[in-house]
């Protein structure tokens, strides 16, 4: 494959005169969305379509004794039912945690776990029938929290994992941290708690399964990952993947909440095949809270050594994740709570220990920032504390010790361009930081924090050598260009990016591009909208396909017009001579000339990320072709009498590499700010545990849009956005991600601003006013002015993987017992942490996301 940077360089019109890239053009789906023409999954309707409801567990942990459908079957319109035995095969997004059943066959693991399904003619009838199903349970002990999971080995929620209710432990050390701590002049030790929260997409999950002729099946679904859904369907239904078609409908928001394969998708498919009728299922808002896969609650212990000028000498991070009832992406999430600590500031020695527990709550998974906002919250607050203690300006402590671009970090991540310096400078200037920080009247404060995120996970979720994104172009005498790609539009604008890249290279109007996306029958595989991978990976694939199409047309036109191909310019729907623009043909004529010369015109492009240098077990989580950076300053006003506070302004700078469409980029920045504010101001996936002597129950406290508090636009402060553009050779036209990164600095920036305003620390999210008040009361009592967790539990993290850093002359491998095992299974094309045999047998270790 031709590296994309060359493709850019080959453009005769040169880097600077893009026609479309970099201008705020209208999204290709904007008109349809604002006029209600977009057809979301729930808008779909088919002849003879019927409706399904899942019957969900009303107990947190129990054995199913009996399911009685007798009343349900009498509900008018009742058509069919299903229970767990019908679908015995397990599934799960990661090959290492195939722990979900479409319907629980024997044990339920949280309130909301699906037990049975009913289908009826209308949705109302399906609801009545579902309510009439009676399930008898035999209760098992409820495990409600990290602490309980650690202290309650029996009963096990799953019979796999480390032991008891520990799903996964990770321990690795990059360079010796102890000498680093000895070198340190100041050591800070803190514990932080990041509460869980959920994605809250406006669109509730919805699917329609349509049986086709000859035993084939089509599933229309609001999914971020049609490809992984396709694989899970094939596995559980026991059908060849070639007979199943998954069409990803436009998502009304996803944020990571629609990137697992889900029970309702599989059950609807089975029901459709059984009944021979299209089956629709649309979840209620409450059910979306049960699908969850949101932010893991994470308890953290962070110990960092600093020199007097703020340089970090060593860091030791411990994280404990409350995973909920299933694996989901959790093994990857666990690694992610440690993986990206190294990419922002110079961190020479680093140790990370992580543990993920199973509890009887809806499963956690990836939410915007996947596993990284929690440790980032701790890190950025601790830096603020260090700056304060060392008498260094919080902006300077960061600016002085930024990670160096184009290097390899202590944990073997290859970082490319780093725009963090410019980001910090922008927000410092915009907010008047130098004049105002630390000098505002009591009650007013500024806080600064930074963050970084992947531009696509370096490895696919299951072990394979194939492209992570594919794009196919079909051109013909109509002058139109059809673009086929498996990517899914979840509102982030991926359709617009895809069309724009092709339009830019071929010089055609966006209206002449027809997209066909997210359809496993028709489009080349793209792994989906997760890990901020789409612009970079799909973009590079699109660039290659478009470049190849351009070459085909250029060679034909060159021959016909007798102009050297290298002089041909594709712009304004024309192909013409750069030396004499009058000489040329329309794009349609050019297509006709090319079709006549070459035959039917189609090209493909594909993308595989570069190999990452890490070779230790676990090195598969963290690598990315490049990383985006963001910095933020937040201004708050705090009322010391009540603890109530308000965010007055947010300044956010984001290193985007290059904006394909600055309007979309700004939209994502503001969306990230908004979501981050929700997480720090109020959002929490909170639970009610009833008094133990009276009940085993453990329920979601408020599974509704009214009572799960999330800011409305009324609560949104003004945001000043800066885009830092320093094209990265690995991104299409130099672009990096923006979907997730800008969320990261917000939460710690708010906490730091509260400290500047009233001098107390809240080391916890969300920051409720009572926490500030309690910290102020403690301070008035001459105790530490702080609210937050005070201890990290005792955990056996197992043998620590010892990995020498690049600086120490390591080769990316661990030096203890894993070494030999790993070497034998090393994969050549990309770095991976698993042996080939393990991966292919789908058992252990094949995790990567």
């Amino acid at each position, binding site marked *: 494959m031709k590296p994309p940077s060359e493709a850019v360089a080959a453009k005769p019109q040169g880097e600077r005169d893009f026609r479309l890239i970099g201008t705020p053009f209208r999204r290709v789906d904007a008109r349809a969305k604002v006029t209600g023409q977009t057809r979301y999954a729930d808008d779909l309707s088919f002849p003879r379509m019927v409706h399904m409801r899942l019957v*969900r567990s*009303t*107990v947190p942990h129990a054995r199913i004794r009996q399911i009685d459908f007798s009343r349900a079957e009498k509900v008018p319109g009742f058509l069919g039912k299903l229970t767990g035995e019908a679908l015995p095969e397990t599934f799960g997004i990661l090959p290492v945690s195939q722990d979900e059943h479409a319907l629980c066959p024997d044990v339920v693991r949280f*309130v909301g776990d699906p037990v049975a399904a009913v289908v009826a003619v209308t*949705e*109302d009838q399906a*609801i*009545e029938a579902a*309510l009439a199903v009676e399930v008898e349970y035999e209760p098992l002990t409820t495990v409600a929290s990290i602490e309980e999971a650690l202290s309650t080995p029996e009963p096990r929620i799953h019979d796999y994992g480390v032991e008891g209710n520990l799903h996964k432990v990770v321990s690795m050390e990059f360079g010796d941290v102890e000498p680093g701590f000895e070198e340190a002049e100041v050591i800070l030790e803190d514990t932080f708690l990041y509460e869980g929260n959920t994605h809250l997409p406006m669109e509730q999950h919805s699917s329609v399964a349509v049986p086709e002729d000859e035993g084939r099946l089509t599933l229309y679904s609001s999914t971020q990952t049609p490809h992984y859904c396709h694989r899970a369907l094939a596995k559980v239904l026991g059908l060849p993947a070639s007979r199943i078609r998954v069409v990803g409908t436009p998502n009304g928001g996803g944020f990571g909440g629609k990137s697992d394969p889900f029970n309702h998708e599989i059950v609807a498919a089975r029901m459709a095949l059984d009944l021979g009728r299209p089956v629709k299922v*649309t979840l*209620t808002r*409450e059910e979306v809270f049960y699908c969850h896969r949101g932010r893991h609650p994470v308890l953290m212990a962070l110990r960092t050594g600093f020199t007097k000028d703020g340089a970090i000498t060593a860091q030791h991070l411990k994280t404990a994740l409350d995973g909920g009832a299933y694996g989901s992406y959790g093994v990857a999430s666990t690694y992610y709570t440690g993986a990206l600590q190294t990419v922002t500031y110079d961190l020479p020695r680093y140790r990370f220990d992580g543990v993920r527990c199973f509890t009887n709550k809806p499963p956690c998974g990836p939410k915007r920032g996947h596993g990284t906002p929690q440790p980032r919250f701790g890190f950025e607050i601790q830096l603020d504390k260090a700056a304060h203690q060392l008498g260094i300006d919080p902006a300077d402590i960061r600016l002085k010790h930024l990670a160096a671009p184009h290097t390899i970090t202590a944990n073997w991540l290859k970082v490319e361009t780093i725009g963090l310096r410019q980001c910090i400078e922008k927000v410092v200037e915009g907010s008047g930081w130098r004049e105002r920080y630390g000098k505002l009247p009591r*009650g007013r404060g500024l806080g600064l924090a930074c963050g970084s995120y992947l531009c696509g996970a370096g490895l696919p979720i299951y072990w394979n050598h194939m492209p992570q994104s594919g794009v196919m172009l079909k051109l013909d005498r109509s002058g139109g260009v059809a673009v086929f790609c498996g990517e899914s539009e979840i509102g982030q604008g991926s359709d617009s990016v895809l069309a724009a890249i092709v339009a830019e290279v071929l010089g055609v109007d966006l209206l002449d591009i027809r997209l066909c996306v997210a359809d496993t029958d028709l489009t080349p595989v793209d792994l989906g909208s997760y890990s901020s991978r789409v612009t970079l990976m799909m973009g590079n694939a699109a660039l290659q396909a478009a470049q190849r199409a351009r070459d085909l047309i250029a060679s034909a036109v060159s021959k016909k017009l007798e102009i050297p191909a290298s002089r041909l310019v594709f712009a304004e729907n024309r192909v013409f001579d750069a030396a004499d623009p009058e000489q040329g043909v329309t794009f349609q004529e050019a297509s006709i000339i090319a079709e006549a010369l070459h035959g039917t015109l189609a090209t493909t492009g594909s993308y595989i990320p570069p190999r990452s240098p890490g070779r230790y077990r676990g090195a598969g989580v963290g690598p990315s072709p490049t990383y985006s950076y963001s910095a933020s300053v937040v201004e708050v*006003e*705090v*009322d010391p*009498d*009540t*603890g*109530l*506070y*308000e965010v007055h302004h947010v300044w956010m700078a984001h290193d985007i590499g290059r904006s394909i469409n600055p309007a979309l980029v700004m939209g994502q920045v503001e969306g990230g700010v908004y979501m981050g504010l929700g997480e720090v101001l*109020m959002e929490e996936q909170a639970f*009610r545990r*009833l*008094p133990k002597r*009276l*009940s085993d*129950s453990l*329920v*979601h*406290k*408020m*599974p*509704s849009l*009214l*009572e799960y*508090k999330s*800011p*409305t636009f*009324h*609560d949104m402060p003004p945001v000043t956005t800066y885009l830092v553009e320093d094209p990265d050779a690995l991104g299409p036209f130099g672009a990096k991600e923006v979907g997730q990164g800008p969320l990261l600095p917000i939460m710690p920036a708010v906490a730091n601003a509260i400290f500047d305003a009233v001098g107390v620390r809240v080391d916890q999210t969300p920051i*409720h*006013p*009572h926490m500030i*008040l309690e910290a102020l009361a403690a301070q008035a009592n001459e105790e530490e002015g702080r609210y937050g967790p005070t201890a990290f539990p005792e955990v056996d993290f197992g043998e620590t993987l010892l990995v020498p850093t690049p600086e120490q002359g390591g080769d990316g491998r661990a030096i203890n017992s894993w070494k030999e095992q790993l070497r034998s299974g090393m994969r050549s094309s990309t770095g991976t942490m698993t042996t080939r045999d393990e991966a292919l047998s789908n058992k252990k270790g094949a995790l990567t996301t």
Partner: protein
Amino acid sequence: MIRLPPFAYRRPTDLADAAAMLAGEGPETRLVAGGTDLWPNLKRRHQQASTVISLMGIQGLAGVEETEDGGLRIGATTPLSTVADHPVVRWRYPGLSRAIDSISSPPLRNMGTIGGNLCVDTRCTYYNQSEEWRRSINYCMKAAGEICWVAPSSPRCWAHSASDSAPMLAALEAEVELVSTRGSRRIPLPQMYQDDGIEYLAKQPDEILTTIYLPATSDAAHCRSSFWKLRRRGSIDFAVMSTATTLWLDGHGRVERAAIYLGAVASFPKPADKAVERLIGEIPTPELLDQVSELARRKATPMDNTDFQAQWRKAVAGKYIRAALREALGMDPELLAPKHQAGGTPTS
């Protein structure tokens, strides 16, 4: 989507017919006005109805007009936004506009009625949940269950009063007219409520609330009303604590009469009598207002059945009461009320 269960729907055009229907149908008959409270409750099935009688077709039940004695007469089915935006209300009873403007969101205020708001069901996070959710806790005393999960040893339900207009109208000494087949009666608004989370209305089930009467006020300087509401966000949210204050001053600024009611901290709009006594006959000073607020605050008994930590709600209630009193007297409320906490600004 959660859907409504089936029921018979009636839409009388005449008040007498409505009263007859209400008296005639079984106990599972409910009135509906704007439906912004009833429909969600029926969908989640913590309220049941075999028949629903809509009041919205009844002639003459909506509208705001001035009475001969200089007060106001408000029909029960008047949309909340119409009441809040009425020029006389905005001018002479600003606290009422403020209270209504803080209810939910503009679309709900266009749909919801003042009568419905006064009769709105009490709330609790163990109760305002779906049928399936409530099955998971084996229900609670207020609907289908035996125990109160908020206070398991308590014999009663502690669901809290949810209406924002009720404490304010009570503080404005409003009266209501109730009509049934047995006739009509006019009572002070507080008498329509009682201290019970389940039987929160003292009105009889067959009585229809038809009219709200506001007493005359000579001018805005004489009668000063103010409303503050604590909640998480600047829109949509119910109060977790609210305070409604009316002060009637004489020509010297002396308090002739006063009323302070607290919302959302008990099963009914709770009067702060001791605090009011302390005010009567005084020319309010900031120090006096501090004392009065503290006295009123003690009346609040927030429970862990809504948003925010209960203890903290009690701790800060005094600040809100104080802010309302100070504001009524034209002083700086001295409370950082971020826009998501404040009483609400006119948005309609």
